[in-house]
């Protein structure tokens, strides 16, 4: 289905409009891809070249130093102490942390959200369904910054969002609480229900004709069986989209892990990279002038690519899992079921 209907494109006024639209879209695509291109080419440049003005489109002196350095840094097999302090753990540890948290969150969130959406779409009716729907969607209206503090307090004294747990009435003892701060659960539990995916699932489940569910009931299936054997196989594309969105959102999430995770054996990659950038800045290697004037050791480090090229490499590493996830989900996206028009 084209932007402009096929018929009529040859008419003069329409033809001009069509070409203009195409040109604008091409420009948009180009601008969209430009940062990625820049990121990849910079990762192969030397530090000096990254500071060159005007910026070069293609590495004049391609160098793999940045890649080597990051992998050495990441596997902690580098000799330089200085470099070791920049990043306490090998990179794959942070990668592991990210994976555990994101996949764990998705493993709970997708079923929970899908069940909620199915119940709201097919099992509840009328006013009840509408109110629950509005309630869940309403949570999307709360900005994250507003709920940040209460959520943080919740992780310290789960389930009470207060700095100190309240006292059990009639005694001096506080309620028992669970402290999930600085554990992967601080990421997994809040992600357990995703209102955006709820909207997605409900929208799709609404398009499933009620007669199919009714036919299954007449056949004798329990509600859960119907969901598992009939609805889920039909919804695979939607699950793929929901998984893809959630993976992207969680993998790149930064502020929340920064707030609730501290020790290096739970920090995800996004926070780890930020820490690395901070370390670079403190070591003074991100500013051209400072860098040029620094000591021998720094010069070595710079030569080794510990600068913007290195950051670019890390950026690419951060992006790759999301991209891979997209490729995986795309397969399932296309396995759609055609609820055919009745002919």
């Amino acid at each position, binding site marked *: 289905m084209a932007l402009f209907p096929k018929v009529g494109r040859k008419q003069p006024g329409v033809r001009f409009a069509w070409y203009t639209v195409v040109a604008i879209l091409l420009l948009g695509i180009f601008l969209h891809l430009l940062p990625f291109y820049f990121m990849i080419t910079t990762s192969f440049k030397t530090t000096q070249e990254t500071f060159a003005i005007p910026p070069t489109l293609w590495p004049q002196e391609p160098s793999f130093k940045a890649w080597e350095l990051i992998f050495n840094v990441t596997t902690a097999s580098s000799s330089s102490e200085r470099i070791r302090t920049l990043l306490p753990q090998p990179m794959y540890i942070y990668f592991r942390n990210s994976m555990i948290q994101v996949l764990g969150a998705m493993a709970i969130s997708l079923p929970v959200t899908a069940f909620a959406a199915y119940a709201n779409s097919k099992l509840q009716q*009328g006013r*009840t369904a509408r109110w629950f729907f509005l309630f869940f969607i309403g949570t999307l209206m709360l900005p994250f910054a507003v709920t940040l503090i209460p959520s943080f307090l919740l992780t310290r004294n789960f389930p009470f969002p207060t700095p100190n747990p309240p006292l059990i009435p009639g005694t001096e003892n506080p309620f028992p609480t669970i402290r999930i701060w600085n554990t992967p659960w601080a990421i997994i539990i809040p992600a357990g229900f995703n209102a955006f995916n709820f909207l997605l699932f409900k929208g799709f489940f609404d398009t499933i004709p009620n007669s199919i569910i*009714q036919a299954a009931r*007449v*056949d004798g299936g329990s509600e859960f069986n119907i969901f598992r054997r009939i609805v889920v196989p039909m919804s695979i594309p939607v699950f793929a989209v929901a998984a893809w969105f959630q993976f992207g959102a969680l993998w790149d999430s930064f502020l929340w892990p920064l707030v609730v995770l501290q020790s290096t054996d739970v920090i995800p990659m996004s926070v780890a990279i930020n820490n690395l950038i901070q370390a670079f800045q403190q070591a003074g290697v991100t500013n051209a002038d400072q860098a040029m004037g620094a000591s021998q050791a720094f010069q070595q480090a710079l030569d080794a690519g510990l600068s913007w090229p290195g950051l670019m490499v890390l950026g690419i590493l951060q992006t790759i899992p999301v991209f891979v996830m997209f490729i995986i989900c795309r397969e399932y996206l296309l396995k759609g*079921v055609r609820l055919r028009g009745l002919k």
Partner: protein
Amino acid sequence: MAKVEVRDVVKRYTAAQEDASRFDRDRPALDHINLTIEDGEIISIVGPSGCGKSTLLRIIAGLESVTSGQVLYNDYDVTDVEPQLRGVGMVFQDYALYPTMKGKGNLQYYFEVHQRTEEEMEARTREVARIMGVGFDLLMGQKTDTLSGGEQQRVAIGRCIVRDPLVFLMDEPISNLDAKLRESTRIEIKRMLRRFKVTTVYVTHDQQEAIFMGDRIVVMRFGKIEQVGTYDDLYYTPANLFVATFIGSPPMSVLPVTRNGAALVLGDGSRFELSDELAAVLPDGPMRLGMRAEGWLVDEGVAYPVRHIERIPTEQAAFIHTMVDGVHVTALVPLDYPQVDEVRLAPNWEQMYFFSATDESPLYTPGIPELF
């Protein structure tokens, strides 16, 4: 094999349950329905959209709950029994096949859920394939969302009969098919129903289909049953004006008339002398005259302009469409009737229906004609 009884069922949709824009808030979807379907009988339920026929079917199936009243199978109260346990087979208007399974999976879902043995499942599927005729095996092996409408419909029927149910429930199963396919499919369905002798409830909005399928026909409107009976009952002795105009194709024309002494006067002034029999029965004053296409005597009486002539070769008949007193009227004539601009019509006293001018009650209906 079951006798199905619906006792004083009322179904109301509350605002909390359903989007009330589909029904008037004041009117219940089903209003004190009483119906007994004998064991092995095929009953058609017919009526305009929104009359409650599908709702009634779903209540018999258990897919909807009643507000009050009872549903009984073989005198056993199943009103609160969930559909999974009622042992019915149902065919839906949009077939409602499971799109991610092949045809075979659709039939076998029932057995899986009830944890029957593999052998039983295979045996029943083979039996159904044999009954459904040539080509059904091919449908078994294909994903149902790749099948055409007619093929999907056959699988849906197969799914309905594979579990040997007590009652067949069919909700407009062939409405979505092409007209030609509908013709051949309904013969197949009727033959199959005759063979199984299972109690069947068949819902449709097409009165010709209802007449073909059902041993008895139930006409519904606005949540109430207007009349139950055989075709002849409904056609020759309709209980009210609605049933009279609903049953019969082309539909009956309704003309406002007045009885003036011994004559019947139409709105445009034409007068017809009443027969003795009718003169004895009809009251004076205004009333409504119902005429079916075959109830007109052609080439005698008053002249009316012809709008067009519709010729139907297979019925060896033609219908003259004309306007009498502002009302659209059809008259039945032989197929080779000449193409004219004007036709003279007079009513045949033996085939006239009279209804009250103010409500829908019948004043006189002809009854089944005496042919011999």
